[in-house]
């Protein structure tokens, strides 16, 4: 890729942005006095602050750059990541799960597992989360370095280390408060940078009708070609989409990934906490329209030989991740290039800040305070939180070099989710809604589910088993799909975790109702979880119902 011609105004925009972010970090340091300020942003945030930070933590560079590329590869099927792969799980979190999380005043998801099951379940889940976070942060750091390397022509090592230093600087300063503050500022900047792309793209190709006129059915429908995997570009059936993506992976990410849920824990009251993912769901739908729309516009341009638009080809392979930068090169004039590059950097910062602040919280509370130093003071925990940030970023640098050696990052990311998130969601949901599940059942369910998923992935990658092994009833087309294998691996991990937990619960000691009070549905003191009486149009259920209707309507309209 040729480096983009950054002018004086573009550099000024980048400089202003970075100066602003560092200034915010110093400004907020004055307001971070305790460990609760550092990790939960003092629990004083409004639903809008939490909802936007929640969504911003999700809008990392992988989310936007990666999925725009996936839209070129898979057409409208990529929209499933924003629809069935997001909305139902986000609404379920807001409507049903948040009262348990919020009421228990836990500082992390492993903290909930300790309360519901036992210390071992907490430590195991924390360890899996930490591994997951380092792998994901490594990918984010690699993508950021890719932006510096390809846009600005900087060398790899400088790009990776400079990105790492920026993140270390401002997350260390003020923890979640700083991360959330920055995320909200970045949220607006990201929209300023990417919202204009589909607008210009539509003008360029001649309007939305051109998308429909130039693409085959498999690329422009959501479900019509999902009956037979061979008929759609993702090579996946509706079963894989609903069970794998819609249930096992989506619920794993949106309802148990502490990275994003932590934003809701910082809300000032339960209603705000419940509204957090529901507000996020509206932005998720909008983001899906922008990301998938931009990708499909690029697809129309690629299919038209006279457009002069092409993706990067490296080593004979198409680099789908280059869609967004290439479109920016096509349309962006001076000033806009500055906003575009800065918004790409902002996406990275949002993702990494989120990764690091939740990595902090889980390591400090669920591993350090729980296993290493049980008597640590609040000041000591604050100090450990800051040291952990630096250590986490150094490990992510190592992860970035590993990610650099991988052929694609999005498929790899979904594979990570199927191994480390699906078993957790199975056990958390079972434990939250069924008091029958015992501490040993929960622990062994998570452990066996994770182990089987990891072994399946290793066996598949080392060719001991074919990809089709994990895809039920797969034909030759489905057998080629790495993505379909990720979806189904998540389903198996979920089923094995649940099955193991249920079987072991028959033979092991249960916790008493009193011990489970507040952590299992039906055993919660109503006065503690019911939100204050508010008008019907302020209830989380009302706003969740509206998103759900929009979600159904989109699926029907684009069937």
């Amino acid at each position, binding site marked *: 890729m040729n480096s983009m011609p950054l002018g004086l*105004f573009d550099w000024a925009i980048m400089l202003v942005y970075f100066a*602003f972010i560092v200034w915010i970090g110093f400004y907020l340091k004055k307001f971070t006095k305790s460990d609760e300020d550092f990790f939960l942003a003092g629990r004083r945030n409004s639903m809008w602050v939490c909802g936007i930070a929640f969504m911003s933590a999700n809008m990392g560079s992988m989310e936007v750059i990666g999925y725009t590329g996936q839209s070129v590869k898979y057409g409208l099927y990529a929209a499933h990541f924003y629809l069935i792969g997001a909305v139902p799980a986000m609404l379920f979190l807001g409507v049903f799960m948040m009262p348990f999380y919020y009421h228990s005043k836990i500082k992390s998801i492993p903290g909930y597992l300790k309360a519901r099951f036992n210390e071992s379940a907490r430590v195991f889940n924390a360890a899996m989360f930490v591994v997951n976070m380092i792998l994901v942060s490594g990918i984010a750091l690699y993508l950021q370095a890719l932006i510096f390397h390809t846009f600005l022509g900087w060398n790899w090592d400088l790009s990776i280390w400079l990105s790492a230093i920026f993140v270390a600087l401002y997350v260390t300063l003020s923890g979640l408060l700083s991360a959330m503050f920055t995320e909200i500022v970045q949220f607006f900047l990201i929209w*300023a940078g990417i919202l204009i792309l589909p607008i*210009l793209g539509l*003008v360029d190709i001649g309007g939305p009708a051109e998308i429909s006129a130039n693409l085959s059915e498999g690329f422009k429908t959501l479900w019509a070609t999902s009956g037979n995997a061979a008929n759609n570009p993702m090579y996946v059936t509706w079963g894989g989409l609903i069970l794998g993506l819609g249930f096992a992976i989506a619920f794993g990410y949106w309802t148990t990934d502490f990275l994003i849920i932590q934003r809701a824990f910082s809300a000032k009251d339960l209603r705000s906490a419940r509204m957090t993912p529901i507000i996020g769901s509206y932005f998720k739908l909008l983001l899906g329209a922008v990301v998938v729309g931009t990708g499909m516009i690029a697809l129309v341009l690629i299919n038209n030989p006279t457009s002069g638009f092409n993706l990067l080809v490296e080593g004979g392979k198409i680099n789908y991740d280059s869609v967004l930068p290439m479109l920016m090169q096509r349309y962006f004039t001076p*000033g806009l290039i*500055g906003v575009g590059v800065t918004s790409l950097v902002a996406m990275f910062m949002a993702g990494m800040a989120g990764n690091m602040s939740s990595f902090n919280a889980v390591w400090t509370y669920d591993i350090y305070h729980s296993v290493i130093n049980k008597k640590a003071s609040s000041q000591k925990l604050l100090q450990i939180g800051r040291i952990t940030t630096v250590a986490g970023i150094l490990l992510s640098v190592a992860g970035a070099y590993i990610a650099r050696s991988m052929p694609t990052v999005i498929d790899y990311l979904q594979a990570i989710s199927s191994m480390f998130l699906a078993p957790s969601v199975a056990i958390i949901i079972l434990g939250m809604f069924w008091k029958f599940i015992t501490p040993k059942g929960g622990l062994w369910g998570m452990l066996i589910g994770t182990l089987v998923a990891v072994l399946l992935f290793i066996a598949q990658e080392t060719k001991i088993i074919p990809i089709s092994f994990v895809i039920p009833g797969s034909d030759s087309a489905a057998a080629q799909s790495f993505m379909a294998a990720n979806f189904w691996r998540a389903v198996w991990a979920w089923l094995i975790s649940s099955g193991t937990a249920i079987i072991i619960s028959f033979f092991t000691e249960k916790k008493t109702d009193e011990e489970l009070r507040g952590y299992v549905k039906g055993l919660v003191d109503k006065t503690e979880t019911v939100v204050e009486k508010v008008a019907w149009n302020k209830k989380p259920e009302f706003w969740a119902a509206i998103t759900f209707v929009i979600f159904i309507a989109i699926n029907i309209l684009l069937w």
Partner: protein
Amino acid sequence: MDTEKGMRSIWFFVGLIMLTIGILVFLAGLYELINPTVQNIKLISLHTNIWWGALIAITGLIYTIKNKNKYVEQ
């Protein structure tokens, strides 16, 4: 001073950064209009940086003015 009143509202900061960046994009557009240097960019005749920059700046200005006296209590 701010520490006594509490923490400034996040929306004030959002406004400030949007206003600054919007003005810079707008100025880049004006400069390009007077002194065209860019070639090979599609839809250059739309002068997107002028109107998009103005839109970002106006949004920023509204947020800044609306939230300049708002503080979060400690």
